[in-house]
């Protein structure tokens, strides 16, 4: 177990180093001089330009800029927003809980739809139930979530007037109001993941149901319900748990557009606003933070896999 962890970290650390170089390198893609962009109307004034360059250390050689940047990142300093004039780390920490609430609700919805649908379609393979479940999964995977969001606003907010079309109320402010403002975006965000989970659950269940121990259990006269729910499902869920954890990371990316449509002030809105304001340190910070969350989640996925699969513990 410890050896495994050590090996895993030996893989993660170089990945993180490469990642930091790539994210730092994003700046170099920028056409033109950042100092000119920042100076705005004062771009003709060489004094202002020199001051900006010195302040942002743009006048230093690239390797030095990188080492300086990564040194700050390691102590939790993700830089300073050019426009909002606040530390990037603070902005991210402010917005993260909002997106986390949205992603968690989306994830719960995805699990509640995807896993039972997968089980049902595996146990009733090649019946209309199976076809309908597969159809819904394909629908969820192919639906661009920003369009689904707009269509749902059209139906539930404009036509029926049941739910607010946009805005956000935090959980601590008013619990039910908060749920009302996030339920529609969470559903929109969750549909794609529901489809993916359904397909994986179905495949894993079909695999488990074809195993010898299932045949043995059936031959012993164990009730079909027990065979499905106790024997097959417990084994089938092992890969689904791992995959689900990683899919949670994808929800963060999906949140970018969903938050934009429902004007929810989260992580995704932060990066989009930063893109429009050319607030590059914020863009870099958000990319870095998502990547870190993603790497952490895949580590959690591996640990969970070991926890639910006793055979892995000896490895």
């Amino acid at each position, binding site marked *: 177990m410890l050896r495994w962890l050590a090996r895993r970290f030996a893989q993660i650390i170089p990945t993180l180093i490469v990642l930091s170089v790539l994210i730092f390198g*994003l*700046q170099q*893609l*920028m056409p033109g001089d950042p100092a000119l962009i920042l100076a705005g109307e004062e771009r003709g004034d060489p004094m202002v330009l020199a001051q900006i360059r010195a302040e942002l250390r743009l006048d230093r050689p690239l390797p030095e800029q990188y080492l300086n940047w990564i040194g700050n990142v390691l102590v939790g300093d993700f830089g300073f927003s050019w426009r909002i004039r606040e530390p990037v780390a603070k902005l991210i920490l402010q917005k993260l809980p909002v997106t986390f609430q949205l992603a968690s609700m989306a994830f719960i919805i995805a699990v509640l739809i995807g896993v039972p649908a997968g089980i049902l379609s595996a146990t009733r393979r090649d019946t209309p139930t199976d076809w309908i479940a597969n159809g819904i999964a394909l629908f969820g995977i192919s639906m661009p979530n*920003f369009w689904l969001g707009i269509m749902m606003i059209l139906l539930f907010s404009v036509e029926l007037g049941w739910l607010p*079309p946009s805005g956000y109320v935090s959980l601590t402010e008013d619990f039910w109001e908060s749920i009302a403002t996030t339920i529609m975006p969470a559903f929109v965000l969750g549909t794609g993941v529901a489809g993916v989970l359904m397909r994986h659950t179905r495949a894993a269940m079909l*695999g488990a149901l074809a195993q010898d121990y299932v045949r043995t259990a059936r031959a012993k006269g164990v009730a079909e319900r027990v065979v499905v729910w106790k024997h097959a499902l417990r084994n089938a869920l092992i890969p689904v748990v791992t995959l689900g954890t990683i899919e949670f990371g994808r929800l963060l*990316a999906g949140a970018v557009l969903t938050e934009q449509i429902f004007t929810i002030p989260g992580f995704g809105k932060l990066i989009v606003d930063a893109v429009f304001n050319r607030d590059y340190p914020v863009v870099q910070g*958000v990319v870095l933070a998502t990547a870190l969350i993603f790497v952490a989640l895949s580590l959690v996925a591996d640990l969970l896999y070991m926890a639910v699969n006793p055979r892995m513990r000896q490895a």
Partner: protein
Amino acid sequence: MNALPPERIAAPAARQSPARLALRRFLRHRLAVAGLIVVVLFVLGAALAPLIATADPNATSWSAIRRAPSATYFFGTDENGRDVFSRVIWGARASLAAGFLSVAVALFIGVPIGLLAGLAGGWVDALISRIADAMLSVPFLILAIALAAFLGPALENAMIAIAISASPVFVRLARGMALEAKATDWVEAARALGNPPWRLGLVHVLPNIIPPLLVQATLSIAEAIIAEASLSFLGLGQQPPAPSWGSMLNSAQRFLTQAPWLAIFPGLAIFLVVLAFNLVGDGLRDALDPRSEKR
């Protein structure tokens, strides 16, 4: 024991090439064929846009602002009096170009690098794999948004951003397949005959990994089309007034109460074309890899 009649000894399946068999399996897959037909219709629509469109997609009209769908304006008109049907047809060009071109570029970047990693091994493999891991640890859309943001808003830049973001998947796939192929007898034999590594990769490994690449490429096109629409929706792709489904949806949001048709048709187009590519991809997977056929 009776001898088998001659026609049963010569197995009829042996006379058909694997490609033919795969084609036959694909054609049996009704949904996949339906998907393919939809894809072909969209490609024709994009190619023949000047002939099919009933109006100039960028021609504004004061007298026809926000008209509901009718016999004259199939999909209605937008806030500037432009014909939505013609804009959807022309918009197919941006979406399909982004889908096909960015995935083609991703293949051209990803496959050779992946083959190199798999065949070379050692530190080359370690370095390439870490770069691919690093890129895959940033969710696809966020990476594309960040790249497009730094490159600047334009359809070409969006396509470059999507291509780069999509390439690590192909690196990983090609690497894995190269490793698998390297262990086979035929590659071992080719190596023993003194073939240089590039020849091994090109002649002996590549043809064998085309089926999984084809499946992944089809599914990646679906993802790339959604990504282009997303970037254009955010204003990072196709720039106005040129028509694109994503940017049409963005402006439609402001007129949701007055003109819902503005939001319905471009979105429906994205959904249909993505669904079609996903159906084709699933069908190809079942057809090309008999092992993965539904158990």
